[in-house]
């Protein structure tokens, strides 16, 4: 991934293709590659999802633990994102090599889920000051084929959608010590307003979605925004070393919102469809 080096000829070819609204793989500017999503594929986690788009491969595992709330936010639970860039993606990620990228991705995730409009941490609280749920969202990047942010965003949302938290039947304070009873039933998270992340990549005078690795190399700046299903934007950040005109910026923002809403709807439909297969559904994992 870090090894993608393009000659100026290749770059110009890609640029012209995008100008003509016909990209190297035949897509239009605002078209996504086809994605494959599978959820609940790891029994040892509370929720999991695997996303495969182009050459990008993301695995998300969610684990839920009981914890004590932060003292300054006594009635909120905790949500923690951890991104691990596995060396299987590229030898450059060996050891601590992927840490920079991982921090960047987890920062975007944190920003996207920060507003209460998207994720209400209060629902994770069990007993104020004493007990709350802590949700670990662990993202494992197995292969990088461009457009990591979008892929991670979708995979995280799908995994959270599949997450089942044990239901709490009784939570009492017993002499200052919290006492909690769990049942076998599970409750699901309210994913109705979880954001997804859209990257708009500016190449030449145009902007595209879902760039491949080669297209990412051609771009000097891109905008990563997280769109909530109700049309709000929960985070925007510009990446890359280039700058953007004000007008282009607003146009990109509007485009991102439209795409985000569409993508979100499609994703939710697909997840619902998958859910209808029920528990007997065959799990493919990596064997497909």
């Amino acid at each position, binding site marked *: 991934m870090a090894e993608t080096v393009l000659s100026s000829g290749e770059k110009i070819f890609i640029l012209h293709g995008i100008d003509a609204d016909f990209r190297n793989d035949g897509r239009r500017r605002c078209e996504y590659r086809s994605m494959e999503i599978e959820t609940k594929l790891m029994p*040892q986690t509370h929720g999991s999802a695997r996303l495969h788009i182009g050459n990008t491969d993301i695995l998300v595992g969610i684990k839920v633990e009981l914890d004590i709330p932060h003292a300054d936010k006594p009635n909120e639970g905790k949500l923690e994102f951890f991104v691990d860039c596995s060396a299987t993606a590229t030898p450059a990620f060996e050891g601590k090599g992927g840490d920079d990228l991982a921090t960047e991705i987890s920062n975007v995730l944190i920003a996207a889920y920060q507003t209460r409009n998207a994720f209400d941490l209060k629902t994770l609280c069990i007993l104020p000051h004493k007990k709350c749920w802590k949700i*670990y969202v662990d993202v*494992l990047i197995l292969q990088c084929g461009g457009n990591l942010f979008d892929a991670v965003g979708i995979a995280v949302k799908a995994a959270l959608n599949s997450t089942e938290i044990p239901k709490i039947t009784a939570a009492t304070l017993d002499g200052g010590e919290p006492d909690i009873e769990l049942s076998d039933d599970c409750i699901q998270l309210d994913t109705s307003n979880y954001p997804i992340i859209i990257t708009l990549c500016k190449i030449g005078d145009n902007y595209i979605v879902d760039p491949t690795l080669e297209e990412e190399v051609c771009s000097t700046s891109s905008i990563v925004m997280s769109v909530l299903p109700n049309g709000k934007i929960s985070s925007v950040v510009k990446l890359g070393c280039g700058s953007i005109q004000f007008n282009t910026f607003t146009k990109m923002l509007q485009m991102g919102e439209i795409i985000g809403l569409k993508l979100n709807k499609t994703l939710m439909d697909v997840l619902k469809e998958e859910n209808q297969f029920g528990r007997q559904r065959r799990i493919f994992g990596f064997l497909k």
Partner: protein
Amino acid sequence: MIEVENIEDQNGLRPDGRRALELRQIRVKMGVFGQADGSAYIEQGNTKILVTVYGPHQPRGSTGRSTSNITKGIVNCQYSMAVFSLSSGERKRKPRGDRKSQERSLQLKHAMEAIIHLEIYPRSQIDIYVEALQVDGSEYCASVNAATLALIDAGIPIKNYAIGCTVTLINNPSLEDEDNALGKGVLDANYVEECTPGVTLSVVALPNNDSTSKDGLIVVAQGAGQRLHLSQFESLKARVLYGCQDIRTILDYAVREYLTEQSLPSLFHVALN
């Protein structure tokens, strides 16, 4: 800790219904990833391992400089466990860098150095990256198997399959009966069995093609757990080599199937001509 009573029932079957010398279901996929030079995915029961191979390429960074030997290639391994991989419920803090992972990386490296024809690749490096997605016992051995497959997928010349297998001797005070099959060690233990008080012997061997001759060379062997009287060691070793033979047969079949699939188009081409 799991109750010892649960470990086996009266019929001499293990908790997951296997016999002593029975392996878990092994499922294999080679060439999972497009970008890597070679990759393989293996499932041994619930243990799921993903391995990618990059190289041979120019040595990079500290590994290239520190090794003074330039007549042979360098093997670089990294063993990493996904933070959510543990079956026991808790979450791992760091995916890699702890002593256990580093030891695994080293042992994997040594095992792979033993099978790769490194003398063909002087001044170059081969990277092997292991990612354990789910861990349910015998994960080191499964990763050796997966690494072998990934090397085959990458087209790197190897001498033989390196096959890993574990044998676990469950120390059970209630089990006085020497003849009991389980009393002599069970193959390919899962996490529950590994946690019982007993000894687990992990062996990486290069099994021979024909099982009639020698059992094969042992490349890496390590024991973990409690004590084992030396008199029992030989029988354990025999068992584990038997297990290696079995796994080899399975992997060999998988490789053949994969390669046939890969070469089908060209076979058609030949047929057409």
